[in-house]
Each structure stands twice: as structure tokens, then as C-alpha cells.
């Protein structure tokens, strides 16, 4: 499959005004490279402060990267103006965490779904109406006519998120960024959205970048997975191999921390790394993870940043434990 979205050494700095004339730089994303192929799905997993959300926003070009290149279908869109991004905006869509906040509460379902069509001047009113009802059927909000005039506050979380999916879908995009799409939804409805994604991916060949803190849902939905820590990717690989054989100590800790409904859990404490992820304003030198790492090698990990090395087929990690 052809490469759809390519991120080459992407870096993103934020300026935080600290004093009258000086500002602090926060490097939210630090030299990240990623390739998303057509019809593929990559999960970006990390804790808060890992830069995963920033990476997602960069992938949609909602932010201009400070360094590196961003290519969509081979076209450089790193610094393209909003006007030149029109085509990209049509082919790349986003689904965001909070389905209540990401949808205009002043619009009914019909208006919400019509908006992308209006923005990109698609079709006549009749064509648009047809497209809207098609999209609603696809996200299983039926009977369509019941939902069209409703406002989002009358819908449940799962239904709202499906409206958001419908809106992302209606322009027939090639790429969808899903930023924590199920974290605000009740556990019993999460799988429904994930199945919907999977169905759309298989049916329309849409590529997904799935940004989440929840390695379990990512593990189910994504074929590949990237684990981020403090702005850097520390491990990347095919999901099956990454979850079964996590190499990076951070990935291992992350997987260990995920609770599973097992009654024996309460009898013993879970093995967990100590401390919290440090502030990205002053990242530690060397490997970002070394202050919390159980396998920390003095004089090595705290000096030089480890490079990504292959540890298996289609599986690599940035850790000195693996030569």
C-alpha cells in the first residue's frame, strides 16, 4: 500500500509566556517520524504530557510543526497555507475526545452533518440530504428521520460520538484522526464505536491514527502501535508483537498497569513503576525515561538519547537494553 501520511522528524515547540519579554519553550513533540499507509491504523499510546495529542493535531495540520516535514499523499503540507490545504482538509478528518464539546450544541444533527458539505460546496440540497441520510445509516443512527432534527443534548454519549463519526465520514476521507474517541463514553458502548471504526476502515479503506491513553482499546483496534513518552516515540511495532513482547521498560510498565477484571487482583499489589512523568519544560537528559526506569544503566541512559533499534520484524524500540 502507498504511504498516505508521512511525518519526517517532526518537532513541535510551544512558547509559554513566563515574563514580560522572555518565554519558555516546551517541546511537546520531539523529532518524531511516522508513516501511515493507506487503509492502515496506527495507535499512538501515551500518558498525559507525552505529546500524543499534539502529534494528532499535527497530523491534521491544525498546528504548524516547528521542525520536520509533513507529507500527505506525497505532497508537502508542512507549511501550506489554509487556502492550499483545502483538498487536504477534505481528505483528512478528525474525531475528538468529547462528543459534547466537539459538536456545536446550537446545531441539530442535520446541520452538523451538512456543515462539511457546505464548507466544501458539495452538491445541491437534495444531494446533500441524500448524503446525510446515507452517513447516518452508516453510523447506525436509524431511523434517520428521527435523528435529523434532534439537538445533541438529547442524545447519549455514544450516539453523539456517532454523529461526530458521521460528520467525519460524510466527505469520504482517506484519513481520520481519532483522538481518544471512546474515553468519555460508557464502557458498555465503547466497543460499538470501535467496531464502527473497523467496519468503516474495511469498507472504505480509511486510514486511522488512533490517539489514546488506553493501550487496551488501541490494542484491539490498531494494527500498529507507537508508544510515546515525553514527546518521543519509545517503541513502535505491530500490535500483536508489541503487546505480547513489549521491549521498552515503559511499555512494559504501561501494559502491567492496565487492570483486568480478575478477582485475584485484590490479593496482591500490582507491579508498578514509581514517580510521575516529569514536566516537558525540563526533560531529563539522555533517555527521557531513565529517572523512573527499573533497568536504568548509570552513565549510559542518563547521558545520550537512545536511538530506535529493530528488535523484531516490524518492531523497534529506543532503549539501551537492546543493542
Amino acid at each position, binding site marked *: 500500500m502507498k504511504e498516505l501520511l508521512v511525518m519526517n522528524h517532526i518537532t513541535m515547540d510551544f512558547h509559554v509566556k513566563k515574563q514580560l519579554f522572555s518565554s519558555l519553550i516546551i517541546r511537546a513533540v520531539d523529532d518524531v517520524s511516522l508513516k501511515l499507509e493507506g487503509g492502515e491504523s496506527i495507535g499512538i499510546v501515551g500518558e498525559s504530557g507525552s505529546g500524543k495529542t499534539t502529534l494528532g493535531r499535527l497530523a491534521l495540520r491544525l498546528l504548524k510543526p516547528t521542525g520536520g516535514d509533513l507529507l500527505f499523499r506525497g505532497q508537502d503540507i508542512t507549511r501550506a497555507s489554509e487556502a492550499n490545504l483545502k483538498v487536504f482538509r477534505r481528505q483528512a478528518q478528525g474525531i475528538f475526545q468529547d462528543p459534547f464539546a466537539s459538536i456545536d450544541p446550537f446545531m441539530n444533527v442535520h446541520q452538523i452533518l451538512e456543515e462539511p458539505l457546505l464548507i466544501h460546496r458539495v452538491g445541491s440540497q437534495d444531494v446533500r440530504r441524500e448524503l446525510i441520510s446515507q452517513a447516518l445509516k452508516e453510523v447506525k443512527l436509524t431511523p434517520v428521520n428521527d435523528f435529523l432534527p434532534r439537538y445533541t443534548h438529547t442524545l447519549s454519549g455514544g450516539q453523539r460520538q456517532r454523529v461526530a463519526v458521521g460528520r467525519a465520514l460524510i466527505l469520504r476521507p482517506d484519513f481520520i484522526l481519532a483522538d481518544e474517541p471512546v474515553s468519555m463514553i460508557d464502557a458498555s458502548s465503547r*466497543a*460499538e464505536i470501535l467496531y464502527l471504526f473497523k467496519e468503516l476502515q474495511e469498507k472504505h479503506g480509511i486510514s486511522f491514527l488512533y490517539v489514546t491513553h488506553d493501550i487496551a*482499546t488501541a490494542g484491539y483496534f490498531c494494527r500498529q502501535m507507537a508508544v510515546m513518552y515525553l514527546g518521543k516515540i519509545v517503541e513502535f511495532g505491530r500490535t500483536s508483537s508489541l503487546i505480547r513482547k513489549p521491549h521498552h521498560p515503559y511499555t512494559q510498565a504501561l501494559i502491567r498497569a492496565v*487492570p483486568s477484571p480478575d478477582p485475584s487482583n*485484590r490479593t496482591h499489589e500490582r507491579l*508498578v513503576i514509581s514517580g510521575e512523568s516529569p514536566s516537558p519544560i525540563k526533560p531529563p537528559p539522555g533517555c527521557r525515561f531513565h529517572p523512573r526506569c527499573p533497568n536504568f544503566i548509570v552513565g549510559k541512559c542518563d547521558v545520550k538519547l537512545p536511538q530506535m533499534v529493530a528488535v523484531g520484524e516490524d518492531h523497534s524500540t529506543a532503549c539501551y537494553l537492546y543493542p
Partner: protein
Amino acid sequence: MGLLEVKNLRLSYGTVQGIVPAVDGVSFTIEAGETLGIVGESGAGKSSLASALMRTMPRNVVNYTGIIEFEGSNCLELSDEAFRKQIRWQRMSMVFQGAMDSLNPVIKVGKQVAEPLLLKPGIKPKQAYATAQQLLKMVMLSPEVFHRYPHELSGGMKQRVMIAMALIFNPKLILIDEPTSALDVIIQAQIMNLLKRFKREFKLSILFITHDLALASDLCDSIAIMYAGEIIEMGSAEEMLLEPKHPYSQKLLVSIPRLAEDTRPEFIVGAPPDMTALPPGCYFQPRCHCVFERCLHEHPPSFKLPSGRLVKCWLYGDQR
């Protein structure tokens, strides 16, 4: 005789749409040293249950009845003032949801922890502060945190402070409401380990409220599942996690994506019920995969299964 016995507790809110039930005839018992998990999805009434026990309900409560028997005294018969003086925080305390804004932003952390103790007659400030320091140490916070303001702490640290605060009087029972919902998984695991240790070391009784069945398994000896303001199933953790009986509990369990196994997570079709217009019969009936005629018309009572487990489902209506 349990430490806390709740019988037929009801709590409703008066809203523009009329009277909306939040807790609808809930009964359960917590024994000393035992942890009960209340698991339910948003709107199931878990947090209302907690506020009913702690008497921190919002103003628009219209119906607040039942029996809350705590260490032998019926809380509902106590006046607000008596409840505050005798029970609240001293014998029954709480760790609140959303640690982010549960701390007073203008008071130093140490003082907030020590505050209830400072008000006790006969306790010297020095003593109270020493206790607070010690508690902060127990929740693995460095001593300097004592002199910090809440906004200088991370979410995980604040949650630890909240736990320390709940322990200041060495209470018999702690209600813990979604302690980790805003935290990252690793921090969540740290906090759960901490709670587990306290439970063991202090023989604490805990009422653990969460939407996450997997998280409940970390701490709870028995689990109650709430749906639409009712407890629809309650039993020991083993039973509930290995062999849930109620269709809702079953679905809830298999909706959790597992990392270790290759099973597909499942989901429940439909939306959670609108509490202002509950369906007739069983509240879960419109989404239930085992629904039959009786479910549509009659609201099921709690059936006690031979193992002692309670299920509110007509499927078990003939097993007495």
C-alpha cells in the same frame, strides 16, 4: 450486624422535568474490614448514593428516605448537626472524585489535611500538623508538600492528598468515588496499590465507587452493579467477575477489552435510560438480549440465589 447497613435507600431530585429518582431503593451491607464495590455507568446513581451516605446532596433533593445504619445508629434520624459532629469524617470519610478541584486553592495542603483535627477541642495545632505530616508520608508524598498550595501539585499528588485527608480521624469506613478516573494508568495503579495497602494495614472498610469493573477487581471483596438507580446484582467479587448472572453484568464484563486474550470486546446496544422517563417493567429491558414477555410489564424484585447473591432479573425468578 455489619458496619454499615443500608436498607431501601431512596433519593430523588426536583428538576424542571419533575421529580427524578437517582437512588431507587438500594440496600446493602458492609462488614468491618470489607470492601464493597459499586459499579455502574454514568447516570446510574453511584455518586448520588455516595452523597446520600455522606449527606452532601445538592439542595434540590426532594425525597431522602430509607435506613442508613452505621455502627448501630440510624443516620437518617440524626440531625444535620449531630451527623456532622458524630459521624461525618470522624467515623465515615470520603475520597472525592475529581481531585483536580476538590482542594481549596487558597489553603496550604498541610493545613487542609489537618483542618478537621484542628477543630477538635483538646488537640494542639502542633499535634494535628504532626498527624497530617505523617499521613502525607504514608501516602508517599515528600514532606515539603505540606507547605504547598494545591495548584502546585500534579493530579496524582492531589489524589494522594485527598486520601491522606480522609484518613485524618482514622475512620472506620471510607467512601472512595472514582479516585482515578482523571489519572493516567500508571498513576492509577500506584493509587490502587496504596489503597490496597491501607485496606490491609488498617482493616479499613471501603465503599469503592467506579464505572470500571476491572478497577473494582483490584480492591473489592464484593461487588454491586448499579443500573438506573438500582442495584441489579450483588455478590462476592469472585462470583461477580467469573460468573455474572444479570444480563447487564455479563455484558459489562465482556465489554472490557483485554490485553492478554484475543476475545473481542462486546457492547450493549442502545443508550442508558432517561431517568425522567424510565421504561415500564425492568429498566434494562429495552437493551437486554434475554428479554421476554414478563420483563416488559413487571419490574423484577431482588432474587436471592443459593450462593447468597442477589439478582434483579426475571431469569432467576423461579430459583428461590
